[in-house]
């Protein structure tokens, strides 16, 4: 009995990702010994910080049986509109910037929720439409020019570090304070999903919506919570992205939904809903970030990046799907 459990653990999806990450890291490290330095952790953390926020939201949405492709548009709107308005009005307030960003996310989240839970429009198409509308409205009414000077107190946040590290060759790497956001988010989402009825309800509606309704869950309410959470977090993450770049670009994040969904699915979340974990998603994000940022260290040209990521997702999803097929065919107990 015990040995079977061990086997299950060692052949689980998450372990596969860990193996791949380990092999990839080893390969990169052998080519370039600078990789095995604490500085890699810092650069990688910075690179995947915003991605991780998006990925966690996406994971929650997918677990609930939906999908959300509107978050890049939400993030763009939530970083650009506040900065633009505040710059024009010469307001300089960090709190207001984040509040504004969150409200934009909230509004879009509510629209998504209405379309999906009340009007019963397929989530992919609904959020695609909302994404287009949000991005179109942003570009039409607020402009397309990048704002390189963002309000001072907001910008100042990019220079708040919680950790400084100087490596052997004297270069200093600093870890931004914003790393706390995804850390807190991951812990909170993990606890909510696992230990609250709200979280179990999200799993329940993703598993069988009809059964959830019969059991007495308020399905519409849960869907509202999920999409609003996703919208608000996307807004906040967008603002963080803006601060880290120290500029506001209304287009930069567009198109990132692919990578995020990829990371979530590779992390073991079933696209059909009901299954998924924070730890898996973290691993998925790390794997994708590693490929995106460090493939070049292996001597692979950057223009291979998209293809390699694509191949990783195809293989990852095929394995997940074949495993699900196997579970179906396995002897029932």
């Amino acid at each position, binding site marked *: 009995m015990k040995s079977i459990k061990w086997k299950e653990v060692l052949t689980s999806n998450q372990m596969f990702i860990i193996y791949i990450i380990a092999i990839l890291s080893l390969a990169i490290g052998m080519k370039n010994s600078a990789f095995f330095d604490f500085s890699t952790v810092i650069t990688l953390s910075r690179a995947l910080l915003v991605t991780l926020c998006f990925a966690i939201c996406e994971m929650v949405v997918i677990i609930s049986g939906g999908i959300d492709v509107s978050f890049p548009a939400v993030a763009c709107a939530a970083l650009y509109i506040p900065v633009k308005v505040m710059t024009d009005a010469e307001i300089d307030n960090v709190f207001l910037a984040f509040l504004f960003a969150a409200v934009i996310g909230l509004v879009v989240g509510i629209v998504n929720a209405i379309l999906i839970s009340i009007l019963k429009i397929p989530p992919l198409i609904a959020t695609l*439409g909302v994404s287009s509308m949000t991005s179109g409205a942003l570009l039409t009414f607020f402009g397309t020019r990048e704002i390189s000077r963002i309000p001072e107190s907001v910008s100042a946040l990019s220079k708040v570090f919680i950790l400084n590290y100087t490596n052997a060759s004297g270069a200093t790497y600093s870890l931004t304070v914003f790393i706390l956001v995804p850390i807190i988010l991951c812990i909170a989402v993990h606890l909510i999903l696992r230990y609250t009825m709200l979280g179990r309800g999200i799993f329940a509606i993703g598993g069988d919506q009809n059964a959830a309704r019969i059991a007495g869950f308020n399905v519409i309410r849960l869907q509202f919570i999920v999409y609003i959470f996703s919208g608000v977090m996307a807004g906040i993450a967008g603002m963080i992205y803006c601060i880290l770049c120290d500029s506001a670009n209304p287009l930069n994040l567009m198109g990132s939904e692919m990578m995020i969904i990829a990371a979530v699915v590779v992390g073991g979340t079933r696209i059909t809903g009901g299954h998924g974990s924070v730890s898996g998603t973290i691993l998925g994000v790390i794997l994708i970030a590693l490929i995106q940022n460090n493939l070049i260290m292996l001597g692979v040209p950057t223009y291979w990046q998209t293809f390699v990521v694509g*191949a990783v997702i195809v293989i990852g999803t095929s394995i997940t*799907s074949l495993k699900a097929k196997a579970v179906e065919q396995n002897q029932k107990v």
Partner: protein
Amino acid sequence: MKILKKFDHNTLSLLGMYVVVLVAMLILNPSGYYSALNIRSMFYLFPEYGVLTFGMMLCMISGGIDLSLVGIANLSGVVAAYIMVHMGGTEAGAGAIILAIVAALLVGAVCGCFNGFLIGYVKIPPMLVTLCGLQLYTGLAMVITTGPGITGLPQGYISIANGTFAGMPYTFPIFAIVTLVVAFVLKSTTYGQKVYFLGSNAEASRYSGINNLKVIITTYLISGVLGSISGILSSSHYGSGKSNYNTSYTLLSLLIVVLGGVHPDGGKGKVIGVTLAIVLLQLISSAFSILRIDTVITDLVYGAILIIALIITNVSASRAAKAKK
């Protein structure tokens, strides 16, 4: 009245929208909109996304979706450009052009088969497969181009999308042929009926002796080929092959098929509705450009139309269901 009865609800509402747009332009800017120049430019443009939209339509009728069409289109365009550039560039002869076109169509067929295999055999949901496919094919195009576009294409190829015959752009007959072929395939071939059966109820289709895997692979294969025709048109239109042309077409094609009366759950949809929706979208976007409205607003308008169309479809469907109860 009798003629009206022949059209279904969806066709009628599309025709209504035609009237709205055409009348509005008659009031707002008739001389610009109804000029020969504008009308001709419309004929240049819609075939490019129109052809690709039929791919989306087939997949959606079969109960799936194809989000990889733009990736297939660009990969095909890139492959075609690559072949021509390596066979003489601007001086390449007719043989090279034909080879390039055949290769491009083959690329579409292979990509489509791959999608169909993953969906029908490995049983990964179509949305995920084609989303991955988009990434994969775009990535492959990027690998071939190493980033920038491949330019220096022969004039013969460029004139496919830019040339005219007696004032009529070549693209229009291409679109017309594709439309007629798709309409014929859906209405008058065994495969066409099987697509509807598959989309209505995959299980019952299997129990009726229909080879679902074959139908799925054929569907995505045709979709891939249509994608590559669209890719040939765009690479010809832009005079180069590049990995990130026309990224807005995914949304646009989805919008058109939904507007054209194809049900997102599969099993329903007609070529006439989708064709009307393709042209309607061109009328709208052309109106925007004549009225000098910033092109970025089209995203907003398209998104809004998509959602409104879906709301109307769903509300009328649930009303119909209630009425039957």
